[in-house]
């Protein structure tokens, strides 16, 4: 079975010019040959099988494809894979270690920050980037930082709570107190 995205294969036919790129994905150097028009989101999902990065609107609006590029959030459907050569990319798969969730992930669990879960990877990465810059954000600042990520289930309330929960935890406070 082929999907829409398989039409621009991460490993294209021999007569298509490709570029060899090495991208540090979740701390691991990955070397792949990509056609220049391949989008980063498609390389992650189809080429590297990191399907935690979702694609939603495909028009730079919804933010579910958000990944961290050199630590800053970007919409991976709006970047070429070839542009990531020599850079660091973090996806939702890189957030937790084998035994421990990232505090942002824990926050989403504790505060019920997801319903269908489709927007969640992008939300969590945008939130992680926010907390790295601003460890003690106000509710408004959280809403502002997540305004490029759409959620159609929750009404955002619990997502905001989840991020504030994670902020407290990361500051060494007890979010349950």
């Amino acid at each position, binding site marked *: 079975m082929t999907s829409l*995205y398989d*039409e*621009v294969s991460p490993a294209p036919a021999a007569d*298509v*010019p490709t*570029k060899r790129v090495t991208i540090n994905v979740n701390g691991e150097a990955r070397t792949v040959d990509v*056609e*220049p*028009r*391949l*989008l980063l989101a*498609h390389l992650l999902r189809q080429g590297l099988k990191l399907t935690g990065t979702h694609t939603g609107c*495909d*028009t*730079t*609006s919804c*933010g579910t494809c*958000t990944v961290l*590029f050199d630590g*800053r*959030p*970007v*919409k991976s*459907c*709006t*970047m*070429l894979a*070839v*542009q990531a*050569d020599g850079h660091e990319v973090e996806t939702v798969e890189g957030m937790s270690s084998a035994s421990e969730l990232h505090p942002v992930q824990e926050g989403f669990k504790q505060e019920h920050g997801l319903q269908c879960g489709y927007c969640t990877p992008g939300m969590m990465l*945008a939130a992680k980037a926010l907390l790295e810059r601003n460890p003690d954000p106000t509710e408004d600042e959280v809403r*502002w*930082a*997540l*305004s*490029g*990520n759409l959620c159609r289930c929750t009404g955002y309330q619990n997502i905001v709570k989840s991020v504030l929960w994670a902020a407290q935890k990361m500051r060494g406070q007890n979010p349950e107190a």
Partner: protein
Amino acid sequence: MYPSRFAYDAPSSLEEAIAILDAGGGEAKILAGGQSLIPMLKLRFAAPERLVDINSLPGLDYHRVDPDGTLRIGALCRHEDLEFSDKLDAFPTLAQAAALVADPIVRTRGTFVGSVCHADPQGDWAATMIALDGSIVAQGPNGRREIPMSDFVLGPFVNALAYNEIAVEAVIPAAKGTARGGYLKLERRVGDFATASVAVALDMDGDTVRRAGCALAGVGGRTIDANDAISVLVGKTLTDENIAAAAQAVAAAAEPRTDHRGSADYKRHIVETFVSRILTNISRSEQKAA
């Protein structure tokens, strides 16, 4: 969606980038932040033969204020660099617009200069550049030239760059006197195209307006240059009466069309309200300071 095929270069020097553009004979296109270009490639509104990715070019990610007060913004200065900048105290119009461009994630990647070059009639930065009387520095095989904003945007999505030129810097002159200004935008949700937005920039001498600049986005087939309209304020103080006259003059310069974002009358009304609101805020802060 995915773009049609193109060749890709990521040159490491400006000279090399210009040489590639020159050799491309008009079929090569610059890729900077890509937050407008890549969506257009995916929709196949654009299908260049070659992309010249300038993200590896060194020394273009700056924005700085010269000793004479001129603000210079390099081609790789991202929107968020301006949003979080501490150098925009003397450029309130830009400081207010910075947080309203697209959405926070697009702002990490998109560039000021790229947005101006894109010449989208809805673009925020082109409006601020017109209100602030800015210019664009273009570099080509024969050196550099500075293009005033009034000559830079030729029409929707069309700029004055030659095929072998790169816009390397935006230049915004220092205010003559005290810089005051603001930027307001009405959008249905964050990241949507503006229903209407208004950029106002004033140079004040005490409580008298020395220069007034204004431009509008979203209310016409191009960025509306309302500098003439708002010049009714020059030589005057910001009284309620003068503010109302200026707001009406600017609203008359708008060319809104009725669409799914609102009726033409509604958009014109928003423009008038926004101009009045920005000027009233300036007037109040002047009174507080006095």
